[in-house]
């Protein structure tokens, strides 16, 4: 699984939904860690027969947070409709645009379901160690 920076996400308590707190050194690493955290909640399991799947994405946002919501929502869409998850990513983020090269695999079955990625309390914060964000998922 992708995990460019070890222990870069942790699950935090939410009464009804799921939430993760993510820390990373750069926007690209933060996005990858958020994807990794989301896949961890979804408990993805690779199908034995899966060939490697490749995909290129281009996304635009009004700011870094909207770009993150778009990115994770794209991954959720591929998960639900194509049953594909990505364990290798090369992301480039500049001027609120993201170009991504993704490689991954088909999953065996859907173990968990997330309805959507929300903006609730989402703010990408800069600190001495890098960047941090909390992502709340509607389940």
């Amino acid at each position, binding site marked *: 699984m992708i995990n460019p920076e070890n222990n870069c996400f942790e*699950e935090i*308590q*939410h*009464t*009804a*939904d*799921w939430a993760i707190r993510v820390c990373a050194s750069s926007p690209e690493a933060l996005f990858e860690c958020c994807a990794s955290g989301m896949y961890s909640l979804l408990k993805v399991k690779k199908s034995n027969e899966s060939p490697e799947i490749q995909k290129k994405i281009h996304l635009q*946002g*009004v700011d870094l*947070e*909207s770009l993150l*919501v*778009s990115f994770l*929502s794209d991954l959720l*869409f591929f*998960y*639900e*409709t194509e*049953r594909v998850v990505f364990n290798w990513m090369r992301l480039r983020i500049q001027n609120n645009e993201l170009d991504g090269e993704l490689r991954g695999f088909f999953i065996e*079955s*859907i*173990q*968990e*379901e997330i*309805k*959507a*990625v*929300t*903006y*609730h*309390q*989402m703010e990408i914060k800069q600190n001495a160690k890098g960047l941090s964000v909390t992502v*709340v998922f*509607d*389940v």
Partner: protein
Amino acid sequence: MPNLIDFVKISDFEWELPVSFSTSMSVPVRIFATEKILEAALVDQSIQQAINAASLPGVEGHVAVMPDMHQGYGFPIGGVAATSYPNGVISPGGIGYDINCGVRLLASRIDVEEAAGELSNLAYALNHYCPTGLGVSGGIKLSLEDLKQVCETGSNWALKKGYATQQDLRRTEEEGNIKGADFKKLSERAKQRGLPQLGTLGSGNHFIEVDYVDEIFDQDAAEVMGLSQGKLVVMIHCGSRGLGHQVCSDAVQSLQSAVKKYGIHLEDRELVCAPINSPEGKEYLAAMRAAANFAFCNRQVLAHLARKAFKSVFLKKTKGYELSQVYDIAHNIGKIETHQIDGQLKKVCVHRKGATRAFGPNEIGIPSEFAKIGQPVLIPGSMGTSSWVMVGTPRSMAVSFGSSCHGAGRVMSRSKAKKTFSGSQLRTELSQKGIQIQAGSLAGLVEEAPAAYKDVDEVIEAVVGAGITKKVARLKPLVVVKG
């Protein structure tokens, strides 16, 4: 964050947080709860989220919060906010991702004793006929034209296909067809997600439950609804599936720039919104209505499949297995309605997020047979506990925009529930109570453990105490089918 002393006590079941509490609030927050429920709610962000909703542009009267409240995202679950129409805003986050998540109740004439030996078969049959589970497709095969008809005409599509009766439609909120839906406003992704999912239950807290009528509190109202003591009923809880989730996601994303365009300040970005009469607001309203119609039709098709399951089990054993519709009601939706606010009749957009419409007697929009008793309000409890059939009252029209609670309301996170309870133990406990379970996964079952929710009976006492709904019947579960 407010404390109990910040609230003005109106009665034992009604509390108000005045606008003076926060400079961001345009209207007060009115909580319908016992002191115990209100105090418990202060530990999470439900009240703060209601305060944030009370700052939306054009919000009218007050923000109402039901006793099943809990923290959501943006709005609290159990929240009702009315915004001025057409100049106020519409907020997709105030309706939720599962647009027109709701509840349908069907009544049979089968006596609980008669069914006792068949419950296991019934659980199996319902699970077999009704596609359930995670990301499940396997619904009715639709063409793109079918999907368009479903989204623009709701349950009428099911009627044309033979999956519904006239009574089903008459006894559905908006007769299962909200006008003003526009299929063209759906993204390709929303259509793609909706195509394989009509007639599917999904996962999470969605379920099909067979209950029996345990006690009747209002004989006249029960009779009008077709409910009799000791008879089996079926409750279906689900929504608009991936199509609705995508409609909300698309809108929350696209409106991020609209708030800048219209100079709207937000306390939480999940409350993103646009003026109802703006191009962005109209676009979302039309797409949201299309998703709501998909949900009405989804529950209709599931009702058709449940009827097949009942027939397969009971055809040669007993009469009265036909399921007649009691009512179908949304609890995540935005509706344009007229309400008495500050002494004036005003047209508003009522956002109900985890709140059920509860119109009182003689109100426009309820079936003629319910005119005297008020609109049926369907309130499922947590798994394995009671559910309730209620009716709306004149007081709900006066104080809660014709709304009431929608369930028990969570108190424990899903991850904590998984750590606290064991799936096999829970299954055994439910089985010891005589409840048959068909569940897609033990993990999913544990997330819905009854102890992860408030006591639904306490929630019911609060809405009854506040006068916003009246009891008609209490239901007890026999069979639970979950994704």
